[in-house]
């Protein structure tokens, strides 16, 4: 976190971020990065906030492999929310994450609607947890969690259960796999979400080039990466125009220019997912690049950039 240029800070409700680039859940593991890559990934954490992979009430082993397949400028995955369960997360990972110099946002998903309330309650009294992201949009689980994010009533219900369980800053993560994302966004806000993040992955599938059978063990998967950036930018643009809550934009952000565009479209922060796989050090270069672009073009500060694409 050393050397963050000035003019880059942004806020998500009560959270102040030193710059607008955070990681997308499920795509960057601070503890593994610290273990494997040269350098100190805890005390010099590159992202302005850290969101670990989504946890669920009970541990999940995840879907059958293969779980990954690269498509044109995109990545299909069907991880299936493999995770150790929220209790192990709290007892094993959280203590190690306490020394992170950035806000910790915990992502939770429910296998049943009521799980959102139960998980949120377990996190409510943990000081280190700065915010909770409700993943109501994972395409890779055959459970309530999937349909949930496509249905306004059930979205509102899940968010309001979490809302009742915690006073923490609540982010609802939306799926693009719906006819009208603004309706779902409004339902989440009505349920009590303080902030919206989007997009989760886009439904897709691939066939094995040789066998012509579905290549993913789970048959279908979620598409991410630059291929979906236009879908994500549109979602951010539409939702930020319609609703008055901060938005975290994501979907294909790979360069500093992409960060600029998500901010301009209306995002207050930008999450980087698949691009971490292209280059696990990408966050640092995006932040430096962002500052450079802003200086070159005389764009004063991130705060002023947010939503400028809507203004004439």
């Amino acid at each position, binding site marked *: 976190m050393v050397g963050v240029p000035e003019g880059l800070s942004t806020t998500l409700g009560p959270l102040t971020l030193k710059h607008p680039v955070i990681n997308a859940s499920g795509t960057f593991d601070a503890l593994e*990065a610290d273990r494997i890559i040269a350098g100190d990934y805890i005390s010099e954490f590159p992202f302005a906030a850290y969101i670990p992979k989504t946890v669920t009430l009970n541990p999940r082993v995840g879907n059958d*492999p293969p779980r*990954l397949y690269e498509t044109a400028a995109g990545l299909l995955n069907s991880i299936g929310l493999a995770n150790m369960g929220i209790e192990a997360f709290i007892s094993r990972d959280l203590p190690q994450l306490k020394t992170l110099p950035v806000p910790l946002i915990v992502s939770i998903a429910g296998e049943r609607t009521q799980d959102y309330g139960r998980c949120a309650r377990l996190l409510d009294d943990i000081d280190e947890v700065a915010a909770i992201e409700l993943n109501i949009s994972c395409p890779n689980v055959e459970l309530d969690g999937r349909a949930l994010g496509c249905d306004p009533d059930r979205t509102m219900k899940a968010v309001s259960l979490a809302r009742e369980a915690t006073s923490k800053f609540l982010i609802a993560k939306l799926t693009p796999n719906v006819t009208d994302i603004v309706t779902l966004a409004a339902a989440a806000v009505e349920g009590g979400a303080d902030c919206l993040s989007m997009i989760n992955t886009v439904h897709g599938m691939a066939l094995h080039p040789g066998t012509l059978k579905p290549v993913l063990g789970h048959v279908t998967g979620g598409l991410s990466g630059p291929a979906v950036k236009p879908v994500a930018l549109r979602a951010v643009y539409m939702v930020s125009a319609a609703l008055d809550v901060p938005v975290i934009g994501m979907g294909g952000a790979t360069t500093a220019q992409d960060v600029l565009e998500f901010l301009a479209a209306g995002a207050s922060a930008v999450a980087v997912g698949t691009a971490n796989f292209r280059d696990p050090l990408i966050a640092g270069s995006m932040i430096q690049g962002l500052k450079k672009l802003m200086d070159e073009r005389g764009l004063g500060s991130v705060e002023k950039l947010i939503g400028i694409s809507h203004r004439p």
Partner: protein
Amino acid sequence: MVAKPAPASLIEYPVVESRPVGAYRLISFVAREIAATANPGQFLMVRQAGPSLDPLLPRPLGIHDIDSDLVRILIEPVGKGTYELSTLRVGDRLSVLGPLGNGFDLQGVGTALLVGGGIGVAPLALLARSLTASGRNVQCLLGFRTRSQAVSAELFRDYYVDVFTEDASVGTRGLVSEPLSACLSDNSGRRDEQAAEVFACGPDPMLREVARIAGDSGARAQVSAAAHMACGIGACQGCVVKTTSGYQRVCSEGPVFEADELIW
């Protein structure tokens, strides 16, 4: 399996050598850090440097060999990622993350039987070099489908090598499994320090056979497993294989596993 690996770094390197080896391509670059710290069986995440987003992600490639500061990779073009990498020429730039994963455990002392199938021979050259350097007796059994793949056996000319091809175009006709059985036949039941030990890398069906044969003879077998990867560093949970202790990540718990821990 071995001591905690050295930290990985992400660096761009110019290609300093690029030549065809039958159906494969051998590419070299100067990478002091990797050369100094990599263990046989570890891998690199490699892509062409530059802004093009297709291919999007690096591909996992074994470290084929190390020659002082020179690191070599051996590539079989099977899809768009490996195809693009195999078109790179001297001066083109690679983006390389590594060394990654847990390599082979080299602590035994018995005869080392190195079993490679197709492009699975790639990591065995560095392995053979290390084992030989530590004074172990190394014997390579290399199997290929075609003559053009079998050309890569020339990369093992410093070692004792038997080559097998399915079409008998080079070496002996057949799969590596039969000769492996023969090599292990006098090993039966032994798993002491002097016992022969198997190190294998190749397609799944071959590894399964190796595991069965080694299991039958009681020999220890370490196999390098393959999986589609995205991150290569344990973040995405994408590269799992089924083991006796549940799903394990090839990039982090592997790529080298004890053969008897994998569930096929």
